[in-house]
C-alpha cells in the first residue's frame, strides 16, 4: 500500500482500542510542538477512516462523516480549485466535488457506502483521482482539475479528473480492496478503464483500443479499450469494473 499506516497492520474493526487513540493523540500533540499541526489519518478496519485532529482541518466528501467525538465544525467548500478560476473550471468541467472542511479537536470517523479505503501519502507529487473516489485529504493539499480527454470518457466518468498535490495524506475509496501496481520505465502497465481508480507519480498515459473487425460485428471480448501507463509511478486498481462503453463491446 502506498499509504503510511501508523500502528502496523490494520486494527480489527471491532472493539476499538481506546488506549491507542490516546497514544496517537499524544503523538499528534507532540508533533504539534515543533511542526505545524497535521491531522493523523489511520484506518479502522478497511472501511472506516479515523482522523485525529488537534485544531487543524481536513477536507472530506460531503456527508461522509459517520461519527466524531470532541468538538468539530463542518463547513461546505467546493472542489476543483480555489478562487474565481476554480469556480470557472468547476462550471465548465462538471468535475464538481462537494467537499466539506472539517475542523476541530478530537477524532472524526469517515466512511462512504461501505467502500474500501486506501491511504495515499503524498510527498510533493501529484495524485490523479476521480472526484467520486476521493474521500478525504489533508487541508494542506491542493486540489485541482485536469483534462483527461478520451481516456476519461472511456472510464465512464467524464472528460476531467481531480488532482491532489502537495505534502500530506489523502484517502481514496475503491469498490473492493484496491491493488497498487508499480510502473517503471521497463515495465509499462495496461489497465481496464473501468477498474482504474487513481494514479500518482511521473506517468504518461495513452489510450489503447483493441477494436477490430470482430468487435464491430458484435463478437468483441469486452476489452475493447485500455489505458496504458508508461514512466515511473503507482497505479491503483480496484477488483471491480464500473460500467463503461468499453465493457460492452
Amino acid at each position, binding site marked *: 500500500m502506498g499509504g503510511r499506516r501508523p500502528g502496523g497492520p490494520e486494527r480489527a*474493526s*471491532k*472493539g*476499538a482500542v*481506546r488506549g491507542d487513540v490516546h497514544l496517537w493523540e499524544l503523538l499528534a500533540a507532540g508533533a504539534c510542538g515543533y511542526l505545524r499541526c497535521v491531522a493523523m489519518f489511520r484506518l*479502522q*478496519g*478497511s*472501511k*472506516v477512516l479515523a482522523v485525529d485532529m488537534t485544531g487543524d482541518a481536513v477536507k472530506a466528501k*460531503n*456527508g*461522509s*462523516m*459517520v*461519527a*466524531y*467525538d*470532541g468538538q*468539530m*465544525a*463542518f*463547513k*461546505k467548500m467546493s472542489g476543483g480549485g480555489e478562487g474565481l478560476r476554480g469556480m470557472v473550471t468547476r462550471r465548465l468541467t462538471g468535475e464538481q466535488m*462537494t467537499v*466539506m*472542511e472539517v475542523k476541530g479537536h*478530537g477524532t472524526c*470517523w469517515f*466512511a*462512504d*457506502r*461501505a467502500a474500501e479505503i486506501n491511504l495515499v501519502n503524498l510527498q510533493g507529487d501529484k495524485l490523479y483521482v476521480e472526484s467520486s473516489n476521493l474521500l478525504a485529504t489533508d487541508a494542506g493539499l491542493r486540489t485541482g482539475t485536469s483534462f483527461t480527454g478520451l481516456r476519461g470518457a472511456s472510464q465512464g466518468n467524464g472528460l476531467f479528473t481531480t488532482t491532489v498535490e502537495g505534502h500530506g495524506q489523502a484517502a481514496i475509496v475503491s469498490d473492493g480492496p484496491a491493488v497498487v501496481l508499480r510502473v517503471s520505465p521497463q515495465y509499462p502497465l495496461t489497465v481496464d478503464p473501468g477498474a482504474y481508480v487513481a494514479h500518482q507519480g511521473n506517468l504518461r498515459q495513452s489510450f489503447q483500443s483493441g477494436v477490430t473487425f470482430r468487435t464491430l460485428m458484435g463478437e468483441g471480448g469486452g476489452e475493447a479499450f485500455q489505458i496504458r501507463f508508461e514512466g515511473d509511478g503507482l497505479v491503483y486498481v480496484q477488483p471491480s469494473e464500473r460500467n463503461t462503453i468499453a465493457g460492452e463491446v
Partner: protein
Amino acid sequence: MAFREINPKMVEATVMPGQKLFSQRGAMLAYKGEVSFTPNMAGGQGGLLSMIGRRVADEDTPLMTVEGSGTVLFGHGGHHVHVINLAGDTLCVEADRLLAFEGTLQQGTMFLGSQGGVMGMVRGQISGQGLFTTTLKGHGAVAVMAHGGVFEIPITPQRPVHVDPQAYVAHHGDVRNKLSTALGWRDMVGRGSGEAFQLELSGSGAVYVQASEEKL
C-alpha cells in the same frame, strides 16, 4: 457464548435443549442436529399485551423461535453481522436490524418520546428509527446487521460522541441521546455540508456505527 462469527456475514449459533433463541424469520441458512423453527406470531417475548404493543409501535419484525439441539447458521441479505454481548445492560436497536438474539434477554419497546419529549420524537423521525425502538436487556448475546462493517466507539462522561443518524446502528449502556443540529445559514441557502443533524450520545456505554450511510 451462543454466537460465533464464522465470517463477517454469517454467525453460527449453538442451540441446546432448554435454551431458546429468537431470530428474524427466514434468516436461517443451514443447520445441523435436531432443531425446530417455529414462527413466533407474537414477534418476540411477553404476552398478548406486548404483542399488541409491538404491532402498534411498528417494531414487530417477524421472528421465529429456534429450539432443539444443534448448530444453526444465520445470515441475511449479505449484510455484515456483528455480535454484541450484553452483561446486564440495555441495548437499544432497531427491530429490523436484529438478526438473532438469545432467549435469556428481555425484549421490550421504548417510546422515543420518553427521552426528551417532542425532541425525542423528532429525533426518531430524522434518524429513521420511527417513534419506537426495541430494547434488549439482561445477559446474553445479540447478532445485529449493518451495511458495511461495524465499529464500536466507547462513550465516557467526559467524551460525548456525535454520530451521523444514518450510520447509527445501536447503543448500549447508560446513554442519553439527543439530536444536535448544526444548522446554519449555509444550510438554508443550500450550501450545507451534509452534516446538519447529528445524534449526540453522552453518558457511559458504547455506540455501534456502520461504515456506510445507507439504511438496511
